[in-house]
């Protein structure tokens, strides 16, 4: 079974600065997908960014970008120019490409605190 590890329970960042959240995963598969979800205080789960394992290019969505290191099984999220609205819990998730059910395996989450 795959496991997803987020080793940082909480990260603090000042407005306009950059913060990087780490995620590592354990898998024997070569084809899979990785995701970052954001959960603000409203509790809603919001998909931030996704990465296909077969793509070498790192995904980017506006101020959010990832550093995908397949050999190291590492998938970090960088939030640039942090804003107060970025304060949330962030979850890393893994999905096997061969799982027709599309089940997600989540990490424990990292709480991001943004200070003015």
């Amino acid at each position, binding site marked *: 079974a795959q496991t997803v590890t987020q080793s940082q329970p909480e990260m603090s960042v000042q407005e306009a600065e950059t913060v990087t959240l780490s995620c590592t995963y354990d898998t024997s598969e070569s084809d899979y997908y990785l995701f970052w979800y954001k959960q603000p205080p409203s*509790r*809603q*789960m919001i*998909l931030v960014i996704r990465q296909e394992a077969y793509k070498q290019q790192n995904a980017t969505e506006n101020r959010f970008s990832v550093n995908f290191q397949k050999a190291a099984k590492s998938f970090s999220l960088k939030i640039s120019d942090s804003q107060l609205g970025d304060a949330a819990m962030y*979850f890393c998730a893994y999905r096997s490409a061969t799982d027709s059910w*599309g*089940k997600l395996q*989540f*990490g*424990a989450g990292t709480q991001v605190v943004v200070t003015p």
Partner: protein
Amino acid sequence: DAGITQSPRHKVTETGTPVTLRCHQTENHRYMYWYRQDPGHGLRLIHYSYGVKDTDKGEVSDGYSVSRSKTEDFLLTLESATSSQTSVYFCAISESIAGRNEQFFGPGTRLTVL
């Protein structure tokens, strides 16, 4: 928001009582999931469904059952609630967007078992 609603949004119940949580979607998605969220664990899969009467167990299915008699409704039942089932429960659907399957989540139900 993928048209997902969950009811109730909050519930407080007592140990030993049965509880049913409802997930309703309006866009005819075939794949539906139930997760629970607990501090230190992230979200963990309880049960999932591919369609009417087609369900299977996830990682933490003990103490839970599900039913799907209509495409739009996916019910999660705690036959006899225990304090360890105090959690936030999320329903999700899988939707194909531009050839990619993405999961979208409902607003969650906070369940407290006293």
